[in-house]
């Protein structure tokens, strides 16, 4: 549900980073924030607890450039991963144009990944969306850690529909912009289709 303003010639799209607690969603946004020109970005807003866990959401507005004379803005959001923030996760999915599912590659987090992906599907369905029909990609994060599941297993379990996927080490920025580019493109292609 993008917002197109013919008067100010702007188009705004909403992209949500979803995934279990501590998988690296906030780290993705922090890296994007660090590496974009000041004139392309707004403030990175984090509504976090004292221990820096995301409480409500992180928000980063990005203005990457123009298409056909329209300024294209991406609004990036993360959701809080912890189970007890289910209500706020639902709210953030409102009006979403594209979803990045960030998985935690550590073997012991596989269960949490599966649960979070289920939760995503349910919450989207409640808002009237179908994950199969939404721009959607998966980022397998924390590939630098020693105890990670093989990438083939990650995809077998989490990516049953074969959507685009990326390996990432968000703390070092590996795969972060690749992920953003891919979802951004998908959102714009979808927009082109629907108008």
């Amino acid at each position, binding site marked *: *549900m*993008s*917002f*197109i*303003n*013919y*008067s*100010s010639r702007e*188009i*705004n799209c*909403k992209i949500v980073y979803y995934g279990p607690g501590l998988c690296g969603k906030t780290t993705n946004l922090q890296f994007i924030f660090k590496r974009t020109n000041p004139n392309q970005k*707004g*403030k990175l*807003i984090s*509504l976090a607890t004292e221990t820096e866990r995301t409480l*409500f*959401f992180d*928000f980063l*507005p990005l203005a*990457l*450039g*123009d*298409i*056909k*004379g*329209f300024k*294209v803005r991406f*609004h990036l959001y993360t959701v809080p991963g912890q189970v007890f923030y289910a*209500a*706020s996760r*639902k*709210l*953030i999915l*409102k*009006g979403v144009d594209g979803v990045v599912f960030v998985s935690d590659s550590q073997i012991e987090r596989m269960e949490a990944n599966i649960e979070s992906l289920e939760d995503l599907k349910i919450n989207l369905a409640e808002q*009237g969306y179908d994950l199969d029909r939404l721009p959607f990609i998966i980022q397998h994060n924390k590939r630098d850690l020693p105890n990670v599941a093989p990438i083939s297993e990650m995809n077998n379990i989490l990516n049953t529909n074969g959507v685009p996927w990326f390996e990432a080490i968000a703390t070092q920025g590996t795969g972060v912009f690749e992920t953003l*580019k891919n979802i*951004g*493109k998908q959102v*714009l*292609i979808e*927009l*082109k289709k*629907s*108008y």
Partner: protein
Amino acid sequence: MINADLVMYEDEFEKIDGELKKLCQQANAKITFLVDKNGQLIASAGDTHDIDTTALASLTAGNIAATGGIARLLGEKEFSILFHEGEKDNIHISIIAQRVILVIIYDQRSSLGLVRLRVKKTSEILTGIFEDMIRKAEEEKDSGLNESPFAEISDEDIDNLFR
């Protein structure tokens, strides 16, 4: 309807912009602005240059979403008016046509009573404008007459954006 894309053309924007300016003056406010429920700024009026309106818009929508969650827990449909009081500045927030949020920031030069009175009038006018806008967008989509520049987006355009 509520989930439809929002498409705003020049004349609609001018009407909305005009209403916001008028409200700002008549309510003696510092700033008035409109936000989509998804957190995207639609228009603003008044003294906005010292303020990060993009962030303000996102947080306002988050605020409305959270309060909406509380409302549902209590069995209310939504709280259609919110009010925050600060030491100097106050914020009055209300929902229009179920999908846009009207925000007024004001200080001691105005009062809650005055703001409420003016908001009521403006709300009625804005509701009309937005309902027309949503209806028009639906009709155009159905008829396929919508000549959008986005139909012409090429892969190259998209690639260029992400260089």
